[in-house]
């Protein structure tokens, strides 16, 4: 049975899943959830699929998963024969991936929140959200700079990208929609270009491929 993704085209969290599906070349069908303006994710019908009332949700045969990061773990474990996107044999790498997935969660309440405020009018303290995003970007930029000095290209130790890169990338690359500039973070900008150069990379509205940047 084909994998189904309950999806909204402008959602950064849904984009994480679409991006990994594209990188893994996994056939799938998109089920559009009318997040804005219809708020279909809050409807009774959708809550039968996800009682938390949020997207994305992945359905793979009898596996039904909510939460973008849980879905990334699942897809990499189930559909990546190379085992590179979620390597489970090295304790250090497992810890690093967990750390950066948590970092991606923090981006959701800062960079992503600012974007939802600007785009869809979510009522929140946008200045605080932007401040928090910049604090996180400083940490990320420093880390990537030291990685580069150590000859590493990606967020975690392996010489190839992992789901950590996929979890962090969307809210970073979309940050300017929320008024969070990346001008001060050259290592982040170089890393974004490296992610875009990975074979199988997919764009979303607001994210251009390398030809346009």
């Amino acid at each position, binding site marked *: 049975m084909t994998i189904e993704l309950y999806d*909204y*085209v*402008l959602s950064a969290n849904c984009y994480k899943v679409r991006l990994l599906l594209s990188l893994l070349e996994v056939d799938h069908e998109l089920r*559009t*959830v*009318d997040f*804005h*303006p*219809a*708020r*279909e994710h809050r409807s009774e019908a959708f809550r039968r699929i996800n009682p938390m009332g949020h997207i994305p949700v992945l359905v793979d045969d009898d596996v039904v998963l909510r939460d973008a990061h849980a879905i990334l773990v699942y897809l990499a474990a189930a559909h990546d024969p190379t085992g590179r996107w979620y390597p489970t044999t090295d304790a250090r790498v497992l810890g690093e991936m967990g750390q950066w997935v948590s970092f991606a969660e923090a981006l959701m309440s800062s960079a992503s929140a600012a974007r939802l*405020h*600007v*785009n*869809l*009018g*979510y*009522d929140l303290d*946008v*200045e605080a959200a932007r401040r928090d995003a910049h604090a996180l970007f400083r940490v990320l930029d420093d880390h990537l700079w030291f990685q580069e000095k150590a000859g590493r290209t990606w967020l975690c130790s392996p010489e190839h990208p992992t789901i950590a890169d996929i979890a962090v990338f969307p809210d970073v690359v979309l940050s*300017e*929609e929320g*008024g969070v500039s990346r001008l001060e973070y050259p290592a982040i900008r170089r890393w974004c270009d490296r992610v875009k150069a990975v074979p199988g990379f997919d764009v*979303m*509205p*607001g994210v*251009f491929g390398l030809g*346009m940047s």
Partner: protein
Amino acid sequence: MSPTVSPGELDERAGVDPVARGLWHPLVAVHDLRRGQQGSAVLLGVRLDYTMAGDGSVSVCRSDDHDDRRPVQIAYEIVWTCLDEPATPLFETPEALETDRRIVHAGTIGVHVSAPRAVENFLDMAHFPYVHTDILGAEPFTEVEEYSVHVDPDTNEVWATDCVFWQPVAATTSTEGQMTDYRYRVPHPYCVVLYKTTPVDPDRFDVIALFCRPIAPDRIEAHMFLALLDADNSDADIRRFQLTIFGQDKPILENQFPKELPLDPRVETPIRADKVAIAYRRWLSDLGITHGVIPAA
């Protein structure tokens, strides 16, 4: 969920354009209203409160003076209002009243750009292959062929006609690429209506409109309104298509500099394909619009 602006984002330059103050502007989509609930939104730097009463009627007043009630009308699935007394009626679009069309408000999106920049981008065909790659255009079919532009003397609306462009996926109803005929109409300084070939009927046109609420000189909320000949696709799929296109335009719009549209013809160099943009800028100058533009010296 009523889109809002932080107090710090209010701009004192807003609200002083007498021409813009006399126009009807889109305030909020009807589907974002709930009976008995109040919301608020900024128009031309002025915060307005709106309420839908239990009987479904809508009222609008200034937030700083609830006795100052503003005129209201519902059109295109949107509540429209005016800061002063309306100088002209809201433009009409007969196709939006045809009963066999799908009428869809595709969404309201905040954009950090001036309203005239957003309108001008909507009028531009040259960016299709590069920004809407494999949907509204594709390389190598990048040429914008000669088209006609005029200002209708009866309605004082800018029209671009005889536009054609090759499009891989022109609409949700498309099954193959097509040469698409376009006609653009600018009936309002901050609103633009597009008529384009529909894959389902050679004699009629799909109607796609962008209505901007000017919040500040460099900030809008964009309403996307559709009146389509499409019996098959769900509202969700139609919105997905439209929001995909708009989401692709958004970073382009937000990176334009200056944010406000310069009306002096010497400031930005146009090419032949920009004929309608030149007419639009001249028309804005003639109207005396100052909000969202850099007036010619």
